[in-house]
């Protein structure tokens, strides 16, 4: 029998080229640049190889450390809330009721609004004098009005609220897809066995949407770690540097200050942290899952 060679590489090559040019090359280039001292506005310093110096500077840079903490706090608070809210929304949207199609579309609106537009909107909402936020809380009692974006202790929280509002729907969407993949027979079977609603959720729904939950958690974590536009529009890192997340700090270094080497080191740090977190999630939450699939 004549052996038939499938043209694997020919078919793969277009996507490999795209991934190579637009993903691998920039990552590699960031790595390379992070070992140089290169300051665009001081061209006479040249492009000097400095080894691990940028990384050493990064570790001892108090601003970088505080923005790392800010980012970590942002991830730790927003991600669980978004996934939990998303789960709640998905469970509701998965029930059949009148107007479900409409509600599904409406829920997605915050996620569909461009982030810059949403950020501007939240900036107005949080305005200390004309914002809806204060009006809803205190009405005409202006003496109690807060200035959320002006208080170092509240500004990050305000951005977190905007982020939760905006992206919970995204988590809901992924989880909803997971819910819809659960075969209806399973519920019919446990109904016969007389399981309570909680038991149904705990023993059927939750285990079966675990992959979707993991995916939502993973996407949200990485996105939250890279939060940039909300900060850029709402606070520019202030007040008192309280919202200076890592990605915004890196942007300022690379783009505004022209410190290409140091900025790249920050970008690589963000990349490595998200890579580590992703691996960790897959290990912790996905391990059992992969095994079961193999057994099936």
């Amino acid at each position, binding site marked *: 029998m004549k052996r038939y060679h499938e043209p694997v590489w020919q078919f793969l090559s277009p996507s490999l080229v795209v991934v190579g040019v637009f993903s691998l090359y920039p990552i590699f280039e960031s790595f390379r640049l992070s070992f140089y001292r290169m*300051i*665009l*506005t*001081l*061209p*006479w*310093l040249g492009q000097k190889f400095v080894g691990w110096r940028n990384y050493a500077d990064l570790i001892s840079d*108090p*601003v970088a450390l505080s923005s790392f903490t800010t980012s970590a706090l942002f991830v730790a608070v927003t991600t669980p809330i978004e996934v939990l809210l998303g789960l709640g929304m998905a469970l509701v949207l998965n029930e059949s009721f009148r107007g479900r199609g409409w509600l599904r579309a409406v829920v997605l609106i915050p996620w569909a609004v461009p982030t810059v537009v949403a950020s501007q909107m939240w900036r107005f909402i*949080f*305005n*200390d*004098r*004309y914002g809806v936020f204060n009006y809803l809380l205190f009405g005409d009692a*202006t*003496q109690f009005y*807060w*200035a959320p*974006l*002006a*208080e*170092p202790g509240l*500004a990050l929280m305000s951005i977190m609220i905007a982020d939760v509002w905006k992206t919970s729907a995204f988590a809901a969407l992924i989880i909803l897809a997971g819910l819809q993949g659960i075969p209806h027979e399973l519920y019919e079977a446990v109904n016969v066995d007389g399981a309570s609603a909680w038991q149904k959720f705990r023993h059927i729904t939750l285990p079966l949407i675990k992959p979707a939950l993991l995916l939502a958690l993973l996407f949200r974590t990485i996105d939250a770690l890279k939060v940039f536009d909300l900060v850029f529009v709402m*606070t*520019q*890192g*202030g*007040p*008192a*540097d309280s919202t*200076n997340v890592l990605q915004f700090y890196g942007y*300022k270094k690379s*783009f*505004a*200050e*022209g*410190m290409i080497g140091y900025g790249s080191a920050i970008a690589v740090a963000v990349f490595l942290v998200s890579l580590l977190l992703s691996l960790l999630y897959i290990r912790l939450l996905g391990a059992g899952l992969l095994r079961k699939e193999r057994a099936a």
Partner: protein
Amino acid sequence: MRTIFSLAIILFLAPCVEAQTQLRFVTWTSEAAKVWTQIIADFEAAHPGVKVVQEVGPSSSTEFHDLITQKLRNRDPQLDVFFMDVIWPAEFAAAGWALPLDEFFPIAEQKQFLEAPMQADRYAQRVYGVPVFVDAGMLYFRKDLLEKHGFAPPRTWPELVRQAQSILAQERDPYLTGYSAQFKQYEGLICNMMEFILGNGATLWNEQELRSTLQDTRAKEAVRFVRDQIVGAISNRGILAYQESESLALFTQGKAIFHRNWPYAWEVANDAKQSKVAGKVGVMPLPAFPGQKSVATLGGWQLAISRFSRQPQIAWQFVQFMTSAETQKRVALSTGRAPARAALYHDAEILKRYPQFDSQYQTFVRAVPRPRTPVYLPLANIMQRYFSSAIAIADSDIDGLARSAARDMDRMLELLRDRRQP
């Protein structure tokens, strides 16, 4: 065969395309947009064969900087003429991005412009921009409120605070604030803080010795004053999140007694359509600390030519046209923005329409530029962080914050020393 045919078409059409030179002009939207479009049309009419293609960028200086530097670092030949903030010439010159204009721009012609922005356009004895608009910080105040409470416009900062406290106590309007200005962590914060610090006889840095002077007692005193007497006493906390537009909105809504802003605010505050205080507004130089001189931060915009432009000659003709006495007068008359040519401050027609230019002239002449150095943006980020941390927290450790800011600035300035001993 087909290739030869298409090649023939291209060769045949090429001269037609060539005949029209495209000049790329990157600008931002402003209240001047309408009159500028007319002026550009006039330029095209006067220079047949030249077509000016406008690219409109964001109007925030920081974002506009991102756009322009992105093009310049990529050596984009699609950029000929662009707007340059008054703080960028040193950076763009050192990076080799802006074209030196000395061969086009004779000294005699340079002398026609106000000295402050002209100085800001020079770096290492060469000139890199032509001033278009000039800006300087001014104090706006509610004439009616001051008269009602029997106060003369304040000459010193402590006087301003006392007047504001007294008026606030008597008006009992919970919405009213004493002082509205730009204290968000961004470039405007530096402009504002610099006016307090220099108005107390201190400086931000020592240009000759290349070191930060933020640790000097008088500099720290000014910062402490802003924290305790302005933010902590007569202003609403929201001021810490305000840029120009929010702070001006508060003033035009009649909810601020004193307001610091650029000259453009005069037109807005006196326009009955957008302002509740039209006709009740006074403007004067900013106060100083007792025994010191008033200082205004220099702002403003220049036109510059990209070093990577393929048609610097035509680009210069365009810059010249846009900054000519005639054009500047036209723009000033229709927008009320302060022109950069000195002679226009004595122009009868302009003074009749905008009498405030007469008294503001001295402020423009004496306006102080922010540090002129290629590392200005790194220094600015350090200072923004310092000022914001110092004034936003009521019991901030100003000494410690100033020490670390000065150390960070010195480390940055250290890089400039290398150049002296290559």
